[in-house]
């Protein structure tokens, strides 16, 4: 490596620009996912089964491989979701915090670039998300929510199927950024 190239790689302007783009993407993509969840089902009702914020959280956690960052990332997305819902703030925050933490922990032990692993993890975290939200709603809020395992499993499969191309697109965007 020459001196010139070493100076280029350590150039602070290039690194700052890349970080700014990454930060923008970290904010914009979850926002798009939340907007998709609150806006698109108005016109295409069957897309309401998609839990894009959860998939974004999982993708971030699997790619970042840092539990603390994933915890805060999941917590932030969850709190925004709570803010746009009628539930007390913190329900989605807790669940997505746990999802982010466990996804980041799992990513340190498995090859998360494998599509099959990605599919299985997406399915598992969707089921975990729905189940844990149901537990919290019953335990903390005392709401008699109905948990349908079959429907949750089916929707988990669908979300996992959507997660594969979505993660691929997000990876491309991350590389471009």
């Amino acid at each position, binding site marked *: 490596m020459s001196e010139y190239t070493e100076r280029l790689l350590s150039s602070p302007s290039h690194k700052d620009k890349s970080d700014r783009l990454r930060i923008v993407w970290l904010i914009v993509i979850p926002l798009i996912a939340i*907007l998709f969840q609150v806006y698109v089902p108005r016109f295409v009702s069957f897309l309401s089964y998609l839990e894009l914020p959860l998939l974004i959280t999982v993708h971030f956690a699997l790619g970042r491989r840092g539990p603390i960052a994933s915890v*805060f990332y999941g917590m932030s997305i969850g709190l925004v979701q709570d803010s*746009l819902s009628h539930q007390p703030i*913190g329900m989605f925050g807790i669940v997505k*915090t746990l999802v982010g933490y466990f996804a980041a922990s799992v990513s340190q032990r498995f090859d998360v670039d494998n599509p099959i692993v990605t599919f299985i993890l997406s399915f598992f975290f969707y089921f975990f998300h729905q189940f844990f939200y149901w537990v919290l709603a019953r335990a903390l809020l005392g709401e008699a929510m109905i948990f349908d395992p079959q429907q949750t499993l089916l929707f988990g499969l669908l979300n996992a199927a959507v997660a594969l191309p979505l993660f691929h697109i997000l990876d491309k965007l991350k590389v471009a950024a």
Partner: protein
Amino acid sequence: MDFFLSRYRNLTVLLIVIVAQLLLIAYQVKSNKDVALIRVWAVTAVTPVEQGLELVRHYTWGFVEDYFVLLHVRSQNDKLQHENGQLKIENHYLKSELATADRAQALSVFQAHSPSKTVAARVIGNGTGANSKVVFIDRGSTSGIESGMAVVTPDGIVGKVVDAYPMASLVMLATDPTFAAGVISQKNRVRGTLKGLGQTKCLVDYAQNEEKVDEGEWFYTSGDDRIFPRGFPVGQVTSVHNGKTFKEIYLVPSGMQGGVEEVLIMLEGQHLQIPDSETATPGYKILPAPTEAAGQIPEPTGQQPSVLSTDADRLREQYRQSGEAQHKPFGEGFVAPDFTKIQGIRASTPAPARAPQTTTAPPTTSAPQTTSGPQTTSGPQTTTATQPSRDREGAPPPKPGVTATAPAAAAPPKPKPHPTAPILVTDPTDADPDAVPPPAPKTDKPAKPIGNGTPPGNGAPPSRPPSGNQ
């Protein structure tokens, strides 16, 4: 402690975050308060984007949607125009059907409330002839229709049946020039003869100039012609003025206003009372309204004919007596009695089939009918032939092919004897052209002919309806 935090840093952060959120939830649930700050931030961050998306969607997807919609606008417009035309036609058809139903309902209501036995019919066509006012109806002899029956609507008279075929009948309208019917005014009970003029108006003839008829006054059928029952509205006077001898009263038949489509044929007519007008013209002694049943027609009794009987009744009674004397019942069998043996009847040479039917010769091919009096075989044409002329100064020349205006056609050239009673004087020119006015028959009938000269051309001699004020 530092070792613990560095070794379990991730777990510690997770626990702190989870506990913090649990405390947040606990605070919201416990205090029933919301963390407004977080919600405001989130909503403020999301809703503008959402509004922008909605605007973009509205102006993009809506435009695309409108574009694809407009692609089919032309074809849809053509389709809608075609559909609109069909609906207009259907609407017009339904309106006409509704109007027909209304007329039919009015007809049925009138039919149900009328004491007369009637049968409803529909006009199916017009008769031929430029000046002819005849129509065909869809009821014929199979429905009990016969010639001479009255045709009315709830609004008034329409005409009469002149020919009855098995499945249809020919109806002469009241506006036909050869139509005539006995009428009487509502206020002053002025009698006259309704004549068609071939126009929309009709003339009420033979009403003396001295009698009072007002414009707007209603005329009703008098029942004298024995075709139309008494009391049916005829029409309202549109103009009236004095003529040379008689008033010239014009009216529009009320039963034909608005066209004739559905009619009623009177199988058995029942006389009705003429509704009283509110004010009658003073100067006349007006008797009270008739109280007897309007439908009762007095029958002549034996040798003493009733005062209310007509010349035709008396003549028929004489025919009947003559038939009994000759053992040939009147009106039965195929051999008619020799009516020339009746005293008082003018003897003549054997009359031809189309001889005058009035007073000089009895009918030769058909017996006189109750409703139409002595007739020849000419059928409805006798109506035309026997109508009196308005000009009593001289008789009009006889029409070719028409009977009954000149009795000399079949009579010998010798001077015609003056008729003796009983005699049916139906036409002044027929009785004695030399005598003006015609001599009064030597009967007990009043000097003024009952029915005020209702022409027997309607098929019947004038008869006096059972009314006491005439």
